[in-house]
């Protein structure tokens, strides 16, 4: 059993095909820019605009990584996740940040999403591409506690929307089994 079996509901099913697109490919350039633009929105905690970048059928999934023996066949906790979200639950999380009692982010943390190692793949369907990236989130709060870091890989399914792209599926693979951050009141 793997984290994919988590009962979080259906996700858009498109899968990558073939080798990564050349870095000069228009789709690679667009996906890369999309990811960098998104990182700036997340750093600024401009979540209302971020929400507009997500499709209505988005599945935003971050399984819990576990340490298992080589050959165990799984490295995520069965049926459990840090995030297993749809558009409604993401919008509730964002709405909460706008309430006066969300003191986990008041004062707000200073965030920097470093996005790198971008590779883009075609799918069988011209309206979708897969973008893979590594993300390092540096999050600093207050002036006493040490800053926290989360390192993760992401696989994103992007859906064409006119001249632009929307995020239809994101799978976040954290590199820690125990998240060394006091909470995940952030997005990756």
């Amino acid at each position, binding site marked *: 059993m793997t984290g994919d079996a988590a009962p979080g509901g259906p996700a858009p099913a498109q899968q990558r095909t073939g080798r990564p697109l050349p870095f000069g490919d228009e789709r690679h350039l667009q996906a890369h820019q999309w990811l960098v633009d998104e990182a700036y929105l997340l750093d600024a905690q401009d979540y209302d605009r971020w929400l507009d970048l997500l499709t209505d059928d988005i599945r935003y999934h*971050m399984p819990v990584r*576990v340490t298992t023996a080589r050959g*165990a066949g799984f490295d995520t906790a069965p049926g459990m996740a*840090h995030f297993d979200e749809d558009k409604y639950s993401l919008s509730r*999380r964002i709405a909460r940040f706008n309430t006066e009692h969300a003191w986990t982010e008041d004062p707000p943390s200073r965030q920097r999403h470093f996005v790198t190692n971008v590779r883009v793949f075609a799918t069988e369907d011209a309206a979708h591409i897969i973008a893979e990236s590594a993300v390092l989130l540096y999050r600093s709060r207050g002036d*006493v506690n040490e800053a926290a870091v989360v390192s993760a890989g992401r696989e994103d399914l992007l859906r064409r929307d006119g001249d632009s792209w929307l995020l239809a599926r994101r799978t976040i693979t954290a590199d820690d089994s125990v998240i060394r951050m*006091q909470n995940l009141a952030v997005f990756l």
Partner: protein
Amino acid sequence: MIPAHIYNDRAVFELEAERVFARSWMFVGHESEIPAPGDYVVRRVLQDSFIVVRDEAGQIRAHFNMCLHRGMQVCRAEMGNASHFRCPYHGWSYRNDGRLAGLPFHQDAYGGEAGFRRKDQRLLPAPKLDTYNGLIFVCLDPAAEPLADFLVEIGLFREPKAEKRKDGATYWAGSGGGTTYKLPPGTFEERMRYVGYPDQMIERIKQSWSAGQQRVVGADGFMISAASLYPNLSFVHNWPRVGTSEDVLPFISIRQWQPVSENETEVLSWFAVDASAPEEFKKLSYKAYLMCFGSSGMFEQDDVENWVSLTSTAAGSMARRLLLNGRMGMLEDGTEVAPALSAEQFAGPGSARIGYSEHNQRALLNRWADQMAIPASRRVPA
């Protein structure tokens, strides 16, 4: 009054490790995490790593995760399935029931059975292990009271409408207590439906809950929303909305506050759902849990901010001069703001009171202070 420095003090933490955590029943997992023979999880009790495993005969065991030979961890994964655990250092291997199965060069290097009797060797078991309704506990004190005596019947349940909260009651009974929310008028079934339980689950709940437990909801109108078992295990029951409709859905979470150091706590969080609940209910209950609790949970985010902040503030010299208030529900002369409920008003265990109060926090701290005062005179037998 509570000395503020106890929340971040190396000496207090060291004393706690010896006098509180090493004497108490500590939760290490749920039987459903290890359903098949060989299934294991690795869990810590303070600094000690234990392999919690179901052996080939189906018995649940907790082995201290340290090779008898030279002390290497014999299991370095945190979950999986294994018939044997083999130490990577010099190859000693143990059956999943803990018995030593083999060691390389037994004859040549150790003199065979005559030189070293393999037969009597096993990984060091936890001094005590017991289960309650699927919850697995170990205790490092071989002289500890039985688990059943330590546990109280604690329910697991939360009301989403905060304005009702002040009408809820809190209760404390010996080693644990909880918080309830006041439900609107209705029968047991109507009140269970109000928090989102489907009829088929209500039928099964009626068969498995005691009469007293059912009276707390059906007659008294209290739904248990959070409960804690001394010293570091908690339960949450809440019923948020999980979609755009007005429907609410209940979830249960088990949470353990694993002490790491005087200023660090690791939180282990489980989502629990009745194995025979309808699949759709399980799915939505899981979503409800994820939204509210756990690493990304919205309710917990703000709590953790408070706890982290008070912990770091408690480290300095000024905190040693401050006695915290913690007197909610108690008047200047020590009498109570609200009287305890009668048995007719609250069918649950212990003593319960309506309204905002810190009776439970004081009960827990009193128990903690009593235990901290008892020296570790008993020695662990060899």
